[in-house]
């Protein structure tokens, strides 16, 4: 059963001169244990679709159903906190928190605090292939690849089943990109996450379970 369904979703950006149809009746469904790649040219609407799926925005029309329930009827804060984890191209780690705190932050939002949270953070950091020595470090002391893996660990710490990634390898070199793709695939295939990746990276698209191509606000499955 699809964990996330996009039903006839349209989205318009408006400014005083024009209205841009970023999404135009998009329909698709995403299941757990799969890694989906959303590819398309710049301006095709893939990041907009990801934002809608991440609960950062609501669609202009149509519905996004999470486990059958429209996001418009869910408290978006709660949705983002408990159901949708996002990984950004620029990592978006909280600069004033250590790696450990960044990872434990989403747990604390859900009331999972203290030593247990810190132990879990340590475990997640190791799972994403980083040594525990990075835990007390601040994000700006890490390389891009390390930061992105911390971002993945933070996403994993949210214990969601839906993991959204917006150009996760956009700022990384080949080696680090490869590691991140491996990690995401592992999360999808071994941990059962539904991983949706917005990307230009052909490697990701090639290794994804399913690939959706966005064109002029419409979705086509390859």
């Amino acid at each position, binding site marked *: 059963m699809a964990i996330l369904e996009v039903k006839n979703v349209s989205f318009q950006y408006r400014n005083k001169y024009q209205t841009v149809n970023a999404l135009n009746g998009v329909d698709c469904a995403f299941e757990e244990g799969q890694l989906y790649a959303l590819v398309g040219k710049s301006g095709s609407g893939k*990041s907009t679709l990801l934002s809608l799926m991440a609960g950062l925005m609501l669609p202009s029309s149509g519905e996004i159903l999470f486990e059958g329930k429209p996001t418009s009827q869910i408290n978006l804060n709660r*949705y983002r906190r408990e159901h949708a984890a996002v990984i950004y191209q620029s990592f*978006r780690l909280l600069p004033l*928190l250590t790696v*450990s705190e960044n990872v434990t*932050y989403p747990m604390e939002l859900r009331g999972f605090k203290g030593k247990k949270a810190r132990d879990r953070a340590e475990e997640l950091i190791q799972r994403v292939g980083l040594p525990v020595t990075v835990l*007390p470090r*601040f994000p*700006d*002391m890490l390389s891009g690849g390390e930061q992105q893996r911390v971002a993945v660990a933070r996403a994993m710490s949210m214990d969601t089943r839906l993991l959204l990634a917006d150009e996760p390898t956009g700022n990384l070199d080949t080696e680090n990109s490869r590691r991140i793709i491996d990690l995401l695939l592992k999360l999808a295939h071994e941990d059962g996450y539904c991983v949706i990746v917005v990307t230009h990276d052909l490697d990701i698209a090639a290794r994804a379970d399913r690939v959706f191509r966005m064109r002029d606000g419409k979705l086509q499955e390859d």
Partner: protein
Amino acid sequence: MQATKNGLKSALRTPGKTLLFLLILTVTAALLTISCCVYGAVRGYLNDCDDYFHTIAELEYIGRDYPDQTVYDEAFAAAVEENRDTLSGLIASESVLAWEPASAELAYSPLIHRKDMLVPDPDTAVLRVYLDSYNDQIGVYNAIVTETLYSRLDFTNKLIMFRTLDGDASLACSDTYLVIGRFYAGRLQNPCFQQTAVTVEEDGTNTKLPAELPAGASPEEEAPFLRYAENLRAANDGLPVSYTADIEDNYLFHQQVLTLLQGRFFTREEYDTGAKVCIISEKTAGMLGLEPGDKLPFSVYHAAGDLYAAHGHTLTDEGDYEIVGITSHSDSYPYRIFLPDAKAAGSAFYPVNGYTLGQFRLKNDGVPAFLEAAAPLLEQGFRLNVYDQGYAAATAPMEELLFISGIFLAVCLLLAACALAMQSHIFISRQRETGRTMFAMGSGRFHVCVYFLSAALALTVCGAAFGAVIGRQAEGWVFQILQRFAAQFAEQDLRFSTTRLAITRTLDFDPASSLGAYLCAAGILVGGTLIFTLLFALFSLRERKNAKKRKKEPRPRKRAGRVSRLSGSFKYGLLSLRRGRGRTAAVLLLGLATALFFGRLSSSLIGYQEQLDDYKAKAVISGSATDCYGKRISGLTLDGGLVAQLCSAELLENCCVTADLGHIRILGGDDGGPINYDFSEYNSYLYESLFYWLSKEPAWIGTNSVANTPQFHFSESGSVEWLDGWSEADFIRLETEEYTYYDGYLDMSSTRQYQTGPSVCALPKDLMEERGIRLGDQINALAAYYHPEWGEILCLVQLRVVAAYVAPVGSTTVFSPLTLVRPELEDRNLFRQFNAEEDRDIWVGRKSWTAENLAKYQAMGLTPAMSYSSLTFTLTDAAKLDETRSLLAELGFTWVHSEERTKPYAMIEDEIYLNTTQSMERQIQYVSVLYGALYLLAGVIGFALAWLLLLSRRREIAVMRALGTQSGRILGNFLLEQLLLMAVGLALGIGVCRLTGTALNPTQLLLTAAFLAVWILSTLICLAAGLRKRSFAALTEPE
């Protein structure tokens, strides 16, 4: 050209922004224009005031006969000699524009025969008399005047009663003698003439003339008598002449004591050449039937010393003087003649006839410095009267206005700078890529700058034009407000004030539009646009350098962990507070600096206020009743009712009154042995002459406070030494004492009024040393005393010397208790018991009594004494200056400088107090305005900084939101962080203030709290903006 066109197009194609900038620039230009206009108008008015008002300072000497302008005081001449260097220094001081010594000469013309009361020596005559017979009974010769060499009254061929120098019959009858003497009013039918001994000064030596010259004396022997007669004629018939280098700045015209009625003042050429022209008084013109254009022949009569002494003078500058103007006259200056002479200026100090040494023309704003430089002179018996015609009164409010308009102008300039900077920055940053592309495509920096400048200048010019139109419309309205403001300041109560004693001119503040102000405002705007646009344009073309990434060793886990173990909603706030590093330090530093800044400013303001309060509390302001020129404070006739009401009011203390008792001759000692006068009912001369000679003796004055009498009033250098057991308070106590009366031929039993009050006196130390009198001695004295009922009477008195005084200037006055002569006075409030029989009409006709006081004192059965000749006082509280003024006005005192008024005048010596307090208040006002602006600026900076700090963290906020953090939690975290940071910073600042010795004050705390509130408010506003839905856009923005 292409760049200009494109630049203009870019402005037109962003109409929203263009309109917004245009609006901002229009408002800025309007404000700037108005502020320039106001500042220019006020500055212009102050410049006009400087030209319109002239400040002079009259330098006088407080001699024993002050303010008599006809005496020659040797002490004055000695003081001038002693202070020659100080005087020269003062004349050369920067505040002085010109010095004009008081010239006091006489113009002698054979056409003039004065018959007024101001003739200096009306009774002295030089006669040739034929002695007919000697009257043994009364000791006089029957004589016939055969020739009158000089006499105001012509008794030629008439019989006079001639008395020789010693009153004996030493001259031979049937002989003719040339004699000098004076007529007196005897009790005989014929005029009485007393021969006098004359000493003349010729070639620096004093020569005693023979008492008389018999007929047949040689012309050489008679020559001194003839010269004496001629000098006497010149002294008596001469008109006072003043040489002046600028008649309009002469005190008399400066203060409008005299005004020009006909003709004109002197021209500059006449001053420079010393032309034979003159300006005379209407009285002189009337007496001689002269008009402008007529000629008046006279010679100027110069004196080396006493102008009015009939010897040692020379007549110079003889000629026909053309009358160019006729002035009004006053009782004090009936016949004054003015002659032009620029040479009068310089460093000359003489002659010193009268008590005015001369006058300074001062820079209007140089008075304080001048007074400071003159301070040493003022301790030597000199006095300065500064007359500014109302300059200070007119400019004081405008100085305030200038300061405020200056602040306003500065704020407008700042605003304009901000607006222009913002416009340039936003305009250029929005089009940075355009600029860079143009640059990349080969357009030079110049073309890029022209592209930006053309749009910015077009906007600025339009804004400036619209602003000027609005400013022009608002200008009249603003000027009206300013005029009202100035009028409000001008309504200060300055009655009786020495500072503003003579406001003789007023200059209306009538601001007008000025093209210069508009051009100035436009210039500032265009200039600012050019500078900012160029700066930002060039900056936008600069190549960026990649900032090095910070790579530091990780912090020890232990430290981070302790905070990490914190939990709860505010954890992030607390963590970021600790880890914000530069940001945290900046906020802490800002808080610390702000608290320090506020502490310093508020404490300095409080310090100023405390200084002012302290000064006001300690200031001593004295005052006195005076004549209409604000000069004379003794010899007045002051209604006792007025004085009593004034002194009994709680506004004044140390009220000192004096009553002139007449003159007193101290008997005993080498000089004043007992007079064994041959009193006889026939010897009328002796009786008359006794009064005459007594009038030359020291003045006898009754007072209730020796140390506050007019002799001491102008200086603090005098001192009084009291006999053990005596003090000021004892001086006026009442006691019953037996009295010794003179028991001679004349019935003087009417002097019985001296039966109560201590028969004591205070004498000048010099006199005591001269006569060998010591404190505690009993002295005998003969006194001439004017009794209101019986007229002038003689009495012999015994007085115990209980005080010896040293007056600031030589004084021979003998002080006795007021209670000695007014024993009925019961207390210092100068009232006595009302006697229904004697005082039946005492209240009648006393218009000066206030209804309240009348009822009050009638009910108490009290009535005041009749009159006093001086009154000095001190204000109980300097802060009650205005109340004292009101009381003086209510009681009928006046402050108006006019001879025609008959009301008593009063003067409060508040010049130093007013200058000091006004200067301090002005300083406080300036500082308050300045500090207010600084507080505001600090608030704006705080607001902007808080905004910027939060703005730089909008991604953090977006991430937190993306992670599902509730808005309340984000708000709480950031608010807590900012609150704690700023609170700690401010607390640190307050702590540092305390450590550096600045006491905490409520203003500082209030301001600090206000700043904290501003900080939190700006944080809240920025957070509210950051928590909007669109804030997620920050997540996808490039780094």
